[in-house]
C-alpha cells in the first residue's frame, strides 16, 4: 500500500521542487510562493503517510526491530547534528551531558535515533528563541539506559501531559501554525520505545519547560 500512497506525492513534490529551483526559468513572486506551499504541503502529507504506515505496522504487529550493537554517544551526537542548524537559527543553546558509563547498546539504531530526534525536534519547536536544550544520557541502577531531552520552552499543563503521547494530539492554545507537525511524533516514539521493552515519561512546568525521558533495558 505504501507504494501506491507515495507515488502521486512523488510527482507533487518533485515537479514543484524543480520549478522552485528555477530549473525551467524565472518565476514571479506569487508563483514562487504558491509552489513553495505545494512543495511543503506535499512534504507534510508524505511525513503523515509515513507515520501512519509505521503506526499501522506496529499495531498489526509487523514492525520488526533491526538490532545491532552501536555506540550510544555517537548515535546521540548524530541526532543532535540534525537539529543543530534549526536550533542555531533560533539562538537556542544545545548541550549534551553523557555519563561515562554510557557506551554501547544493543537496539535498533535507526529507531533509537528517531526517538531522540522526535524529542529534539519538539524541544526546538516549542522553545522560544534564545532558550536552551539539554540532552542527558545515564545508566540507572536497575540497569536501564536513560536518555532525556530538557528544554526551557512553553511547557505542558499537568492535565495535558498524558495526552501528548496519543495520536493526533496537539495540546495547549499556542498551536496556531497548523501546518507544522502531524501530532503523531510522540505516539510513534512511544511505540518505538515500547518495542524495545522501555518506557517514556514527561515532566513539565507550564511556562518553564519540559523534560522528556525514555529508558530502555541496557543490553550490549
Amino acid at each position, binding site marked *: 500500500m505504501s507504494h501506491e500512497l*507515495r507515488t502521486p506525492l512523488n510527482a507533487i*513534490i518533485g515537479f514543484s521542487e524543480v520549478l522552485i529551483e528555477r*530549473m525551467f526559468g524565472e518565476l514571479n513572486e506569487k508563483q514562487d510562493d504558491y509552489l513553495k506551499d505545494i512543495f511543503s504541503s506535499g512534504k507534510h502529507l508524505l511525513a503523515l503517510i509515513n507515520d501512519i504506515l509505521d503506526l499501522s505496522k506496529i499495531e498489526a504487529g509487523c514492525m520488526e526491530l533491526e538490532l545491532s550493537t552501536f555506540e550510544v554517544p555517537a548515535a546521540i551526537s548524530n541526532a543532535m547534528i540534525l537539529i543543530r542548524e534549526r536550533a542555531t537559527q533560533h539562538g537556542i543553546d544545545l548541550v549534551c551531558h553523557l555519563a561515562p558509563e554510557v557506551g554501547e547498546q544493543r537496539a535498533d539504531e535507526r529507531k533509537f535515533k528517531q526517538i531522540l530526534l522526535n524529542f529534539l525536534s519538539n524541544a526546538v519547536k516549542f522553545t522560544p528563541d534564545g532558550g536552551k536544550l539539554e540532552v542527558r544520557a545515564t545508566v540507572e541502577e536497575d540497569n536501564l539506559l536513560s536518555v532525556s531531552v530538557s528544554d526551557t520552552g512553553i511547557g505542558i499543563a499537568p492535565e495535558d501531559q498524558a495526552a501528548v503521547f496519543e495520536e493526533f494530539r496537539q495540546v495547549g492554545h499556542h498551536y496556531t501554525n497548523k501546518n507544522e507537525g502531524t501530532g503523531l511524533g510522540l505516539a510513534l516514539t512511544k511505540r518505538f520505545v515500547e518495542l524495545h521493552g522501555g518506557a517514556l515519561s514527561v515532566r513539565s512546568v507550564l511556562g518553564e519547560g519540559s523534560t522528556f525521558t525514555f529508558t530502555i533495558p541496557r543490553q550490549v
Partner: protein
Amino acid sequence: MKVVLIVEDNEKNMKLARDILQAKGYTTLEAVTGEEGVQVAIAQTPDLVLMDIQLLGINGIEAFKQIRANPSTQTIPVIAFTASVTPTDRSQVTAAGFDAFLSKPIDLKEFVATIKRLTETAV
C-alpha cells in the same frame, strides 16, 4: 555528453527524471520494463543506469543482475531508484550491490549530485 538510461514504469516519475537530467545536460534513454532496460543497456551501453525497483515483469534487482552479468555492460554504474524505504527493502537493494541508492520523492540536490558523481568516475 553523458548518456543516462532511465528504467521506470511510472510515467510522471519518468518525465521528472528525464526533464531534470536533460536540463542538467545529459542525454537520456528510456525503458519502461526491466526486460527492456536490459536490452537497451546492452544495445546502447549508456554511462549510467537509473533503475526503478518495483517493475512489472522482472524487477529492478533482477534487471540489475542481468546488466552486471553481461560483459558489455558489467562496468556501467547502476543506481537503485525507489520509493520503497523500509529497512528490508533497503537491505535487499544494498545486498544486490547497486552503486548508489536514490529514494523517491526525489531530493533534487542529492539526485543531481549522485548522478554527477557516478558519471564522472565512470570511464
